[in-house]
């Protein structure tokens, strides 16, 4: 609702009550600046992207087996690590250097090397900006997942998506501004999409969770459907609620709070139609479904999530996160402490086609121009073996990639050492990743602050550098 309509409606609303003069109305309108926390807000400077799709790979994909080839690792296979090993998660069960069992090939004009685990994503090599120098602070999932989502590996802070919505608001008021599809319940659980100390309006809305197969997902968003009333009956009921609420506003002559609640009910009523439509993929063509891998039993779940990401992007949802999670049929996902070959082969199979489908579809619909796609896990994996044929956690140097609006396509950024253990060039800490994502959205990470408990907090806390080299 635009401001003019808002004034006239409010004017009408008040005309029946004893009005309180121009002064009162002005202060009322001034309050409206605070009345709608989700109203679209201008960025700090020109934005390169309008929205984010974050493809979260819970468990930690191995960088040396996917996007960061290490010939030296192949050469020195089986030898001890020639430098001091940092703290690992499974202290005591790690061994010697383990070469990648997968071949790397250069792809596209850019010649970015990608392993055979991602044959479909590789077709979009020229769209990727591969970040090879990611660094985090936690060697265990709990802290690492929390840090990737909130910037802190210890405390509860607002999540990245909440900060983005706090900074920019949303352009579609009939859908939540921040949605996370099938998130995990472990390693921080809901803290990873919570608004922390930001007002609850900014919290992410979870659709299902990691343990639910999409075919068993009956209600994507809670409380969207009324099971007892027909649409007509519900409208009838809502009219009664609103009538009582308007009477209450008049009786108490209170500030805009009571009025805001009237609006919330109308918005809720519209969401009941808009949201199920957004989640209904029945009108998508078979070709589209196939593009996303919905026809494959392995890729069906993640394919649905990727397709949903595109549908939500089309509907101007600001922050869309889709999660590859631990779960029935996925076991431990990317978290291959042993049996790297079996687990990574299967997990890649589950996500490769859907992700490629998403990139292709976003491109052909022109959405990649204003959408930033981010791919990655909470850390990478060690170049040394664990339990003989697995890899342990490695937050010291690992890969993520970005694609779409705001980043240089067909490039790599940063580098790890010759074994792929430590980031050594253009190190990109998670705080830097956050600063860069905010920057691409037109937000200065140092200015996006919120006062809490006596100080101004930011997503990047006291750190964060924008990786200017990757900006398009």
């Amino acid at each position, binding site marked *: 609702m635009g401001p003019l309509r808002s004034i006239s409606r409010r004017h009408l609303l008040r005309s029946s009550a004893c009005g309180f003069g121009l002064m009162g109305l002005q202060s009322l309108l001034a309050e409206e600046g605070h009345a709608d926390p989700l109203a679209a807000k201008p960025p700090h400077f020109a934005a390169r992207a309008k929205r984010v799709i974050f493809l979260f790979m819970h468990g930690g994909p191995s960088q040396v087996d996917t996007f960061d080839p290490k010939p030296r690792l192949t050469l020195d296979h089986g030898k001890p690590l020639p430098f001091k090993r940092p703290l690992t998660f499974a202290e005591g069960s790690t061994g010697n250097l383990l070469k990648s069992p997968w071949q790397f090939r250069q792809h596209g004009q850019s010649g970015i090397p990608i392993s055979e685990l991602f044959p479909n994503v590789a077709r979009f090599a020229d769209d990727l900006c591969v970040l090879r120098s990611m660094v985090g602070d936690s060697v265990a999932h709990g802290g690492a997942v929390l840090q990737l989502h909130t910037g802190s590996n210890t405390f509860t802070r607002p999540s990245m998506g909440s900060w983005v919505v706090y900074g920019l608001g949303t352009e579609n008021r009939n859908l939540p501004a921040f949605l996370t599809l099938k998130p995990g319940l472990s390693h921080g659980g809901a803290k990873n999409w919570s608004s922390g*100390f930001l007002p609850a309006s900014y919290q992410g809305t979870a659709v299902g969770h990691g343990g639910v197969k999409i075919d068993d997902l009956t209600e994507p968003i809670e409380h969207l459907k009324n099971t007892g009333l027909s649409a007509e009956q519900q409208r009838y009921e809502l009219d009664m609620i609103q009538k009582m609420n308007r009477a209450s506003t008049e009786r108490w002559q209170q500030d805009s709070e009571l009025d805001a609640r009237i609006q*919330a009910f109308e918005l809720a009523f519209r969401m009941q139609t808009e949201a199920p439509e957004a989640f209904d993929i029945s009108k998508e063509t078979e070709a589209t479904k196939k593009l996303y891998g919905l026809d494959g039993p392995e890729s069906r779940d993640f394919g649905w999530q990727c397709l949903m990401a595109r549908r939500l992007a089309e509907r101007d949802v600001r922050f869309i996160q889709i999660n590859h999670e631990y779960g029935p049929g996925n076991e431990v996902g990317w978290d291959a402490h042993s049996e790297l070959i079996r687990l990574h082969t299967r997990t890649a199979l589950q996500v490769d086609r859907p992700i490629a489908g998403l990139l292709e579809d976003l491109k052909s619909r022109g959405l990649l121009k204003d959408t930033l796609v981010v791919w990655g896990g909470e850390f990478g994996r060690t170049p040394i073996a664990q339990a003989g044929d697995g890899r342990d956690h490695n937050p010291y140097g690992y890969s993520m990639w970005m694609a779409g609006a705001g980043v240089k396509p067909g490039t790599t950024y940063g580098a790890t050492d010759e074994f792929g253990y430590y980031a050594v060039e253009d190190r990109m800490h998670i705080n830097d990743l956050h600063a860069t994502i905010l920057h691409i959205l037109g937000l200065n990470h140092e200015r996006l602050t919120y006062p809490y408990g006596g100080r*101004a907090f930011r997503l990047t806390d006291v750190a964060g550098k924008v990786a200017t080299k990757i900006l398009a």
Partner: protein
Amino acid sequence: MRLPFVLLLLTPLQTAGAQTPAAAQADFFEKRVRPILATRCQSCHGAKVQSAGLNLTSAAGFRAFSARLLPAVSYSGPAKMPPTGKLSDGEIAALREWVNMGAPWPESEPAGTPAADFWSFRPVKVPSLPPVKNEGWARNPIDRFVLARLEERGLAPAAPAGKVTLIRRVTYDLTGLPPSEDEVRAFAADASPEGFAKIVDRLLASPRYGERWGRHWLDVARYADSTGADEDHRYPHAWRYRDYVIDAFNRDLPYDRFIREQIAGDLLPDEKGGEVNTAGIVATGFLALGPKLIAEQDKPKMFYDIVDEQIDVTGKAILGLTIACARCHDHKFDPVSTKDYYSLASIFASTKQLAKLEGTVSKLYFAPLVGRDAAEQYESHQQKIEAKKLEIDEVKAEEARRYRDALSPRMAEYMVAARKVYVESAAPADAAKAASLDAALLARWVEYLKPGKERRAHLEPWYQAAPSDLESTARRYQTEFQEVAAKRDKKFQPGDNRFFTEVAAAKGPLGMPDAQRDKPLTAALDAEMAKLKDSAPAEPPFACGVAEGKNVDQRVFVRGNPAALGDPVAKRFPSVLAGENQPPITAGSGRLELAHWLTDARNPLTARVMANRIWQGHFGEGLVRTPSNFGLAGERPSHPELLDWLATEFVARGWSIKALHRLIVLSNTYQMSGAATPEMRELDADNRLLSRFKMRRLAVEEIRDSLLAADGSLDLTMGGSLQKGEGTDKEFSDDRKSPNPDNSTRRTVYLPLRRSNLASMFNLYDFGDATTSTETRAQTNVAPQALFMMNSAFVATRARTLATKVMDDPRGIERAWYLVLGREPEPGERQAARDYLERFPSKSGDGAGRLLAWSSLCRSLMASNDFIYVH
């Protein structure tokens, strides 16, 4: 809708838009320069160490160096600083900009004000009562303080609230539940002057009171039933602490004792002279129930994260100070140094926090609630059982090894025969007979070797072996297996061979089947085990608490890093509050001394902070609107004398919280109406002067409890645990969620809180995160809440049950109004309700249609503003 925090908590860093040049420079210094100095310079040029005679912690110290700063940091001068690595370009640019400004170095406080003179650090002063014009309005001193400020601004206080409004307000306020129809009617009819006081006494005596106000404290104490963070292990005994808090409020345990017990209850004598102070041990749950990353592998960091969390919650909850900021650098705003911080840290670091820190997942400590002898007896018996189990396991493992080694010499033959079965489809029995192998064993080999859906890298050489190489390949597998078997025993070792691991596993082809075990081998041991178990003492009750630990010699950790040791520190309390001359703490952790110091009547913060929290509970906002930050970055009190008067009364009345409630609730200030006049909107827009009563939205507990009360299904059983199970659950399991509130009709305060996944209703209605100390709940107003009212099964059930209860009663409409809204329907509403029921669009005019219409009416009431707001 409002954003309370945005409006109310403007910190010095937040006012950039409208600040003076000096303030902008100060802001620049605090934001951009001081952090560089603190993290990159002051470890060598600070208060403790002054390399090259430089102290960069003050303006005076800096002046000696000012000309050399830029050459040094840009590495262009003779000294290249910091020597550990050049600053980033951005940092150097910030320093250059700062120098160009003339290197302004703002003092933390306006010049000339020593930090110790800051209002909240000064002793509480008994204020004199201010004169007022309208003497008649001032029922007690609270009113005088409020009225004096209003009169100063030429405002008159709002008229008294109507009786129906007032009884609903005070009943929700003190019990979190609505008044009954009888209570409302009786109060409306009671013209006596003591009528209201009698209601207040009744409410304060009700057990419902502790359930409401105890919850306020549980917010501050960040109470939850699991560790949160990574593994989210249950705190199986957390509920005892919750029940303790509710009980403490109900029996009006003096606040000073309440605090002492929560910090050091295990060290205090039992109130009733018993051997073990069980209530005291339970109370230390305040320290023990914080979030813990128990799977963190950096164990020293993890331990000091726990210590830090305890300093944080203690500082915020009790002192209203953000002490934990000083973990890495001297506090930016408050006079709390890193040394102060580690002095406190040494107290909590000398406290027993965990049963076992080492190990991939650290083990939580549960404090036994029985005497030392009984606890030790139980513990040593459990250890005997554990030892016996290990003994039995070892015998079994040895037997399994013999079984395995007896069979491995013919492994290659079994592999070849198995292949005949799963590749050439030979009949298993024939294949076994042909090679004179055991048929059952062969079947297990077939089961293991036949290719499945997934690739097994270690079996690839076997699958890809040419027919002519099959036997030699199988022999290689056998040799490798036997080599590994000879080298290692039961424990899994790095670099282990997956083929060996799988084949020798209990379910593998060479794993010992339980049925083949030689039972008599362990018969004697099994009997001993059974006897041990039979004679085991019963498990004593436990609490999630702390105990005295090993005394540590604490040092400052430079920049918070446990590996970077600075100066040693003694156990002490922050100098700004406790002074420089403190009696040394010579024995024990120091928690007992800390508990006594916190609750010393001379401590300027403890009583003020709690009096302010109680005020906030009644009025929605505190006199200080940053209730957990009374430091320099916090807000100043709107009525400082009133706050000091309340703090004085609080201590003088034996730290009685109920006495403070009575004083506040019986004041005219509390009993004002919420209606704002145009003058109030203009001169007291945000109600800082308390010209009227501020309406509030019900909290999630009140919403749920009231709806359960409305349809008569609220179960008022008190205490105990509704949480099942121990430890944690599979990563993707539904069991990681907090139990669904729809499955219980108990009061919401008793629902278990799994920190990582709170029930969605809690998130929906601003419960907070149960992980950090919550000073104020937000009161948002968003569409998903409306969806909950319109569509949730919970509200639908409440509405239907209520409809069933009242629809056949001639007073049905009136009763529904009272049960949900606590008042009589207005004449217009009565008619509207009748019309609503009559015209409800329903195809069936039968009973089902009628129930539907009534349920819908009841839901409308539940969804209305008049339900969810208290005026």
